[in-house]
C-alpha cells in the first residue's frame, strides 16, 4: 500500500508540466479557465500541438503512433492537463473509434483512418443514440440495407456531439431484424458529405448547440466501410464503451471545479464576509471536498488495477455514478455562490471576439451555464440508472 507516485512517475509528471508550460498557448488556457467557448480551430490547434509531441494518441499503443502509456501515466497526463486548463482532447476519434479500429478493423481501415485521426485530417462524431433508442440502445432502428457494393442507410441519429464540425460519423445501424435486437446491429463508417446526410443543431439549456440531430436519407455507403463483421456491431460498441469510460470519474475536472468554487465563494460577499466563511455554505463545500478526496483514491484503485492488467468492469460504473454526482454537486454550489448575477444570460459574452461585456462578474455566467450543461453527466454514456443496473448484475449478482 503506497499512496505516492514512484520516482519514475514523478519524473513523467514533471515532463508533462514542462511540456504544458512551454507548449500550451495561453490564449487557449485562458479561454478554458474562464469558460469561453472553444471553436473548432481551437481544438485542432491543441490536437496538432499534442500530435507533434506524440501525445495525442493517449490511449493508443506505440505501433499505431500512440503513447503506449499505462493507466497511471494516462491518469497523470489527464490530471496535469486539467490542472493547466488545457482543452480536452476531443474523444470521438482518439478514444472511441481508434481503439475499435485497432481491435476489429481491417488492415486497410487501420492504415487509412488511424493516421488521419492523429494528423487531424478527419474529425469524427458518434452516431449511437436515436430518438427512440437512448438507454435502451439496442432498440435502434436506423437501417443499412446491402445493395451490391454498398449499404443504403436510412434513419436518424441524435445527441451527436460536435457533429457540426465532423467530416465523418461512426454509426450503429440495423442490418438485421432477426433474433435478439443486439444481434442485428453493425458498425458503419460514413462520410458526412455523402448526399442524403443532413445535420440540425439542438440548442441546449446552456444556450449552446453542442449536440445535433443527424438524418440519413438513402445514403449510399461503400460496403468496405463496414467495421468487422455484419451484425457484430454490438460487441464492438460495448468494447468502445469500456474505452469511453477511462477517466470517467472526472477527478481532474472536479478538482478544478472545486478550486473555482472556492475562488468564487471567496470573492462573493454575504453579510459583509466572504461567502466561504458562512458556516452553512462552508459545510456544503467541505462535504463535497471530503467526497472528492475519497473519490480520487477510489479512482486510483481502479486505475492501478487497470495498469496491472485487470480490465475495469462494473467498477467503472461506480466511478461514473459517484464521479458525476460529485461534479454536479460542485456545479450546483458554484451556481449558488454566484447569487443574483446567475440571472443575466448574455450568450454572446461567451463567444471569443464578440466584445460583449458580461453582466456582473465574469465568472457568473460560465458558472451557471456549466451547471446547466453538466446535467448531461448523469445522462450520457449510459445513464446513472443504467450504471446501477450494471452494478446490480455484475457485482451484486441480484
Amino acid at each position: 500500500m503506497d499512496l505516492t507516485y514512484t520516482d519514475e512517475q514523478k519524473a513523467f509528471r514533471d515532463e508533462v508540466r514542462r511540456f504544458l508550460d512551454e507548449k500550451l498557448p495561453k490564449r487557449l488556457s485562458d479561454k478554458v479557465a474562464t469558460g469561453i467557448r472553444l471553436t473548432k480551430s481551437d481544438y485542432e490547434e491543441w490536437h496538432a500541438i499534442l500530435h507533434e509531441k506524440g501525445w495525442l494518441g493517449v490511449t493508443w499503443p506505440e505501433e499505431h503512433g500512440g503513447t503506449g502509456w499505462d493507466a497511471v501515466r494516462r491518469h497523470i497526463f489527464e490530471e496535469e492537463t486539467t490542472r493547466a486548463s488545457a482543452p480536452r482532447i476531443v474523444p470521438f476519434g482518439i478514444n472511441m473509434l481508434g481503439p475499435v479500429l485497432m481491435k476489429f478493423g481491417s488492415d486497410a481501415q487501420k492504415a487509412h483512418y488511424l493516421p488521419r485521426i492523429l494528423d487531424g485530417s478527419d474529425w469524427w462524431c458518434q452516431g449511437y443514440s436515436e430518438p427512440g433508442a437512448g438507454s435502451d440502445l439496442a432498440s435502434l432502428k436506423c437501417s443499412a440495407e446491402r445493395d451490391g457494393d454498398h449499404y443504403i442507410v436510412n434513419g436518424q441519429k441524435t445527441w451527436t456531439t460536435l457533429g457540426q464540425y465532423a467530416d465523418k460519423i461512426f454509426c450503429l445501424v440495423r442490418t438485421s431484424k432477426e433474433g435478439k435486437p443486439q444481434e442485428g446491429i453493425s458498425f458503419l463508417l460514413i462520410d458526412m458529405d455523402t448526399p442524403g446526410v443532413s445535420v440540425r443543431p439542438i440548442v441546449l439549456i446552456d444556450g449552446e448547440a453542442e449536440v445535433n440531430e443527424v438524418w440519413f436519407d438513402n445514403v449510399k455507403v461503400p460496403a468496405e466501410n463496414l467495421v468487422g463483421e455484419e451484425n457484430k456491431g454490438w460487441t464492438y460498441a460495448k468494447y468502445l464503451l469500456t474505452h469511453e469510460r477511462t477517466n470517467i470519474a472526472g477527478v481532474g475536472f472536479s478538482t478544478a471545479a472545486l478550486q473555482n468554487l472556492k475562488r468564487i465563494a471567496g470573492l462573493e460577499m454575504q453579510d459583509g464576509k466572504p461567502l466561504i466563511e458562512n458556516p452553512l455554505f462552508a459545510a456544503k463545500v467541505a462535504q463535497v471536498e471530503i467526497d472528492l478526496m475519497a473519490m480520487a483514491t477510489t479512482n486510483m484503485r481502479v486505475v492501478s488495477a487497470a495498469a496491472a492488467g485487470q480490465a475495469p468492469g462494473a467498477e467503472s460504473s461506480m466511478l461514473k455514478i459517484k464521479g458525476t454526482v460529485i461534479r454536479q454537486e460542485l456545479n450546483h454550489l458554484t451556481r449558488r455562490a454566484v447569487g443574483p448575477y446567475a440571472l443575466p444570460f448574455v450568450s454572446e459574452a461567451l463567444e471569443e471576439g464578440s466584445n460583449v461585456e458580461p453582466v456582473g462578474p465574469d465568472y457568473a455566467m460560465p458558472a451557471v451555464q456549466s451547471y446547466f450543461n453538466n446535467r448531461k453527466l448523469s445522462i450520457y454514456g449510459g445513464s446513472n440508472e443504467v450504471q446501477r443496473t450494471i452494478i446490480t448484475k455484475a457485482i451484486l449478482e441480484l
Partner: protein
Amino acid sequence: MNFELTEERQMLQDSLRRYLSDTVTPEMIHDATEADTGHSDTLWSGLAEMGVIGALFSEEDGGFGGAGFDLTVVFEELGRAGAFEPLMESGVLAGGLIAALGSDAQKAMIDEIVSGETILTLAHGEPAARYDLAHVETQAAKGGDGWILTGRKSVVMAAPAAQQMVVSARTSGEKGDTDGISLFLVPMDASGIETRDYPLNGGGRASEITLTDVTVPADALIGPEGGAFEAIETQHARAIAAQCAEAVGLMDAAKDLTVGYLQQRKQFGQPIGKFQALQHRMADVLIEIEQARSAVINLGGHLDAPRAERERYVSAAKNLVGRTAKLVVEESIQMHGGIGMTMEYALGHIAKRLTMIDHRFGDVDWHLERFIRLAAA
C-alpha cells in the same frame, strides 16, 4: 502508487479472517457482553497468541507492525466479525501512549500488553467534554511523594476488563487548554476509585469512573508534566484510522448479509432482489462503502504526515465513514424488513455496533466543522 497489501499484511489478514470466522459465534458475542469483563477470554487469548496485539506496535516498541496499514488490516477484520475485544483501548490508545511517551520502565509493560496478560484502558473523556480532546477538568496535584488525582471520567471503554488505566489530568491551565494535560498510570483497584460498570450498545462494557484523592507515586507520570496533548491527539488519529477500518469491516458484513437476503427472500413470487427499487439502493450502498474504504486508505497512508495534513485526513475519514455507516445501517435494516431489527439475526449486532462508531471520537458534524477549521488555519 500501489493498493496491494504487503505479503505479511496479506497473511495477517487471511489468517485473522479465518480465525475470527471460525471462532466468533453469536453465542460468543452474547456471552462476552454478559460477562463482567465485557469481553471473551477465549477470543482475547486467541488473538494475543496469533500476534494480533503485537501487530499494533512497532518493532522498536516490542511489537511487529505498528504502521497505519497494520492497524487498518487488523481492525477491518475485527469489524467484519463484529468482535469487540479491548484492542483499541489496550493496544492503540493506552498502549500507544505508553509507547509514545513512557519511560523505559513503563515501556517494559508493552510485552505484557502484547502477550495479552495485561489489559489497559485510557480514561480520558469526561462528562462535559463531548468530543473535545483538550477538555480535561480532572486535576492532578503534587502531594506526598507523588500525585493526587481528583475528577470524573465518562464512558471509559473496557474499564471492567482492565487492570490499569492511563488517566489524563490537568496539572496546569483551564479546561480546553491543550497545555497542562498530563497522563498517569493508575491501577483500577487504587484506593479512591469508584466505578459504575454497564453494558454498551454494540457490545462490550464500560465504566463511569470517579477519582477522589487517588494517590499515585511520582513515577506514575507518563511523559512530560503538562505536555501530553500532542501524543493524545496523535494516538487518537491512529485510533480513528483503526475505528474507521473497523467500520468498513462492519459495512462489508452488513452488505453481505443484505445481498444474501435480497437473493433468498421471496415476495410477490420472486426474490426481492429482482425489484429495481431495491437493486439501485443496494448499488448506492456498495458505492459508498468503496468510498469509505478509500477514505480509510487515505488516512492510513497519512498517519505519519505532518500534523495539519494528518488531521485533515482524520476528519475527512471520520466524517465520510460516519455518513456511510448511517446509510449502510438504515438501508440494510430497511431492505431486510422486520427480521433486520431482531437481536437474534446477525444484522442486529452489526447494525448497532456500526451506529455507535459515530458516537466515539467525534461524529459526522463534529468532524465536518473540524475539517473546515483545519483548512482555514
